[in-house]
């Protein structure tokens, strides 16, 4: 049993055990991750997502899937420029190259269709969890510079 005095052999035994344990943990967390992502994929909502550029152009992306509104926007293939405000969520500054304009007082806002008409979205798009069948429109709104009242979509 000469290997009992061989430091390298003993180190190899330790590394073997560590490698087995690490591989098992890796397998476990990989399984957990894939299981979670597949369950999240199944729980994605299907919504009607639209964008109105404020110049008469309104495009609908019906049947868009997403967990949050931000997911759905990316799923629809939009180019979104947003700034993170931490726990408050994302503030959208530009969509598909159309940037907000402080001079013209035009900002991107999102609206949800209700039985009473368009209702302003109450939270950041990445914080809003979608439900099946919702109709959501991003509108390049005019905001009154004095009252900050936002014009709803027509």
């Amino acid at each position: 049993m000469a290997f009992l005095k061989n430091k390298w052999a003993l180190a190899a035994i330790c590394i073997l055990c560590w490698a087995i344990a690490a591989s098992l943990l890796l397998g476990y967390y990989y399984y957990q991750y894939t299981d979670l992502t597949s369950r999240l994929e199944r729980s994605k909502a299907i919504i009607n997502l639209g964008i109105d550029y404020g110049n008469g152009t309104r495009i609908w992306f019906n049947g868009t899937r997403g967990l949050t509104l931000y997911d759905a926007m990316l799923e629809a293939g939009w180019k979104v420029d947003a700034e993170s405000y931490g726990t408050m969520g994302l503030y959208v500054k530009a969509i598909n190259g159309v940037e907000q304009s402080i001079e013209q007082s035009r900002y991107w806002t999102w609206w949800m269709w209700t039985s009473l008409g368009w209702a302003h979205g109450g939270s950041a798009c990445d914080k809003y969890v979608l439900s099946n069948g919702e109709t959501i429109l991003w509108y390049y709104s005019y905001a009154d510079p004095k009252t900050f009242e936002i014009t709803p979509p027509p």
Partner: protein
Amino acid sequence: MLISWMDYPSNMFESRKASLIAVTVAACLGSNYALIGVANFKVMDLLVFVSGFVFGPMIGASVGILVWTVYGLLNPYGFVPQIWIATMLSESIYGVAGGLLGKSLSAVRLPSNRAGLSILFGATGFLLTLTYDLVTNIAFALTFNVPIIAALIAGIPFAIIHGASNTVLFGICSIPLITVLERSYRGMISWRF
């Protein structure tokens, strides 16, 4: 008549062997019930391994099977025959492996190789525990119609905790226990003296 049977040297040896198994099984059972609330930490595996190391693979395997015969039947977590049989057989692996290791290390003086042996015993404990968990998890999956892969993956965190605790126990406690047992049962251990 019993006394004259006991006086006969070979019978004396057999009866000492039987009492040895009984005492080790009792120690395993006592520690198991004492640690019933501590999940994945049992001294039993170490005791079965050491009994195999000191007294040979047959006694080690017997201790493993007998401990689970009692502990599996009188278990607060319930009794499932298939898992009971699987645990009995897989616990005996500790004893058999201990016995085989004991024979192969018969020429080694324990105190002079303490560091190397501690690492060897720790690694052996870890690998044996993984084997034990593998067998019992497969038995669980087959018994309850759970996919084997899912059962094995779900059991990984428990196997790691079980393996880590046994690595520490085997690494630290094996040599003192073996030394004490060898001193106490010097006449019974043929291959180490």
